[in-house]
């Protein structure tokens, strides 16, 4: 693992403690369940595997970490950011209760309070009776949003692996191949290149395809459009590529669909600059659909988001109308207007970008085209 250095540690803890002071917190508890470990990694620079972990950050003094899995403790301590590590006994969590009794905080912020198990909530209440407990999920989301040079370097590595994974995806497509075998081939390639993990959804078929799912046993057919969101994780950092490819020659409808989605991606990208909101990016994308008479397909009935942030979690700030979160310089997110339309069914297309001082930089080098197999380009 290519670990972050002391400068990165100082930057993160300074940022987090400043936010704690602004919110009047004298203690931060970052909770990391098995599917949301981003804050644990942010505060320890360690890759933990336990089903429940916590990092305790007092307003002053050294942080401490807890995990239900013994193997995590040496992994965290060895990185050196947090050396006070303890096994979290569950469900009693006496180690946490006792620590809180010693610290006697008055106001505790809990990141991922919304996911905190009842047993740990009870332990906090027992250890800090009378303390005000508030959510600090947003505090850490905001802290993580602005990426450092070191973080951007990790994400550029993810970008290279995204490109290689997509190339493998295109290379293996052929009639008769089941969806899950495509995933097996792509996963192998990503892991060969050093990916820690990958989030991937897929859909194959024609204009009947309404959304993205895990792979099934469906066999590819000539003329299918095969869509994927492919999201490798390198050294903790996720990055996504969204593309679609046609098995054989693309139909006119598939080309028209690509043109519509490509125009929407371009429109979303065109407004990106420091200080733009997620809402404004989404509006720019959706206005293209509205202009062409497909506005209804930008609603929750057909789609979820028009993109989302990336970092130590793969699905951070949602790019969606109504989300007025400001996207600052060095925020990283994908612009993807993925949705269903009756033109050619669900279509997937999008590029991850970093917000720069003057606009944006696309992080992947893969062409934004409608791919055909054997390798070709139907629309660009």
């Amino acid at each position, binding site marked *: 693992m290519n670990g972050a250095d002391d400068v990165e540690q100082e930057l993160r803890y300074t940022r987090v403690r400043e936010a704690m002071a602004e919110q009047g917190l004298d203690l931060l508890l970052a909770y990391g369940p098995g599917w949301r470990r981003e804050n644990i990694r942010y505060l320890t620079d360690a890759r933990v595997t336990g089903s429940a972990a916590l990092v305790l950050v007092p307003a002053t003094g050294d942080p401490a970490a807890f995990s239900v899995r013994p193997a995590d403790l040496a992994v965290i301590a060895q990185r050196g950011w947090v050396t006070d590590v303890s096994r979290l006994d569950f469900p009693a969590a006496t180690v946490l209760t006792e620590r809180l009794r010693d610290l006697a905080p008055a106001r505790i912020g809990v990141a991922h309070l919304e*996911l905190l198990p009842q047993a740990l909530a009870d332990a906090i209440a027992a250890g800090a009776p009378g303390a005000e407990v508030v959510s600090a999920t947003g505090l850490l989301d905001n802290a993580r949003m602005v990426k450092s040079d070191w973080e951007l370097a990790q994400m550029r590595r993810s970008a290279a692996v995204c490109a290689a994974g997509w190339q493998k995806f295109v290379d293996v497509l052929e009639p008769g191949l089941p969806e899950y075998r495509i995933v097996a081939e792509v996963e192998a390639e990503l892991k060969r290149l050093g990916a820690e993990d990958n989030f991937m959804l897929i859909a194959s078929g024609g204009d009947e395809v309404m959304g993205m799912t895990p792979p099934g046993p469906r066999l590819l057919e000539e003329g299918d459009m095969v869509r994927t969101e492919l999201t490798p994780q390198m050294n903790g950092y996720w990055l996504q590529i969204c593309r679609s490819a046609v098995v054989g020659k693309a139909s006119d409808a598939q080309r028209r669909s690509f043109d519509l989605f490509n125009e929407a991606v371009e429109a979303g990208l065109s407004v990106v600059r420091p200080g733009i909101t997620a809402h404004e990016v989404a509006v720019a994308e959706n206005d293209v659909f509205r202009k062409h008479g497909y506005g209804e397909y930008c609603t929750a*009935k057909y789609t979820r988001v028009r993109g989302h942030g990336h970092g130590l979690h793969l699905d951070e700030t949602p790019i969606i109308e109504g989300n007025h979160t400001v996207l600052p310089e060095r925020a990283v997110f994908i612009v993807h207007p993925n949705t269903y339309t009756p033109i050619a069914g669900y279509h997937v297309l999008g590029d991850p970008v970093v917000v720069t001082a003057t606009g944006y930089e696309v992080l992947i080098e893969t062409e934004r085209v409608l791919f055909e197999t054997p390798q070709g380009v139907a629309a660009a």
Partner: protein
Amino acid sequence: MKRGLVVLDTAEVPEQERPDRVVRLQRRLADEGVTIGLVYADVHRSDDVGYLTNLCIYWNEGILAVPAEGDPAFLMKLSPRVHPWMRRSSTLTDLRSGKGFTALVQGFVENAAEPGVIGLVDAALWPATAVDEVRAAAPGWDVRPLGGLVREQRLVPSAAELGLLGAAAGHLRTALDAVVGPDLPDGERIAVLEQALRGAGYTDLMVEVVHGPDGVSAVEVTGQFRFSWLRAARLVTPAAGAPQWAASLQDALAAARGAVAPGEAAAVPAAAAEKTLTGLPAGATAHATVVHQADLSTGGDYASPDEQLPVGSVVVVAVEVLFPDGGRVAVADTVRVGETGAEQLDDKELHA
């Protein structure tokens, strides 16, 4: 992450088996005086819901509401656009989407003739906020914590599940055989396993190559095949030969397997393994564990070593050594608890 094959195949598990599992849970709920049982699931821990309905929760979280009488419903924050896929790949017919659990649970309980008892299955693991949402949704109802009622049902696999576990174990054995030679890069070992096992239909897979001192490393695979889990870990023999302590790990694993017996606490085979270990490097600590496959989505993090092993259950026997520099090595195998001891899952006689 759950990005491998998801399939509902009645040739693998008979059509009536899953509804029968729900009926068994409903009888238990009725015995406990519970009107509606709620099973919380998220992408990390969702096997109870998968067992009852074949639904794969590949993202986010949800609640399966199982009334003591009537059909279960899945309550989720995902949009209705995922319903067609959920209907295709599960036995669920009642799928409900909403912005929060309060409104969803409210919608489910409002048809009850009068307030009753809501039981939260595996209550200690529920997010406290979700518990609050349930309470807010059901004023007048008694909201009560329950233990792992569905987990209890899952501990002893059915004949169909055992067949799937046997097939999965065969794939795992073959794939591991191909990658434990001394001269492969770590990434290549992982890639070969991903390709072979996801290609064979594994739904979830976590593969690690872990390292200890003296050039010793191990390949560890935890995988989900349909809704059952397996783990295996094997040492990669260094070109210069294995040191004594590494050989001792194999002896410890054999000792643990030899001590697996129905009715024994999980701690008994673990203790047998730890007694056998000798000559570990300075500062190293060893842990032997016996964990039900039913607990493997959480790695056995919440399992009790005092729990007795039922006959017919399937468990992972593992010996792990942790080193002060964060390194570790492990050996592990997944076995059935037979009448007379541990049985290989892919033993042909087991499936005759």
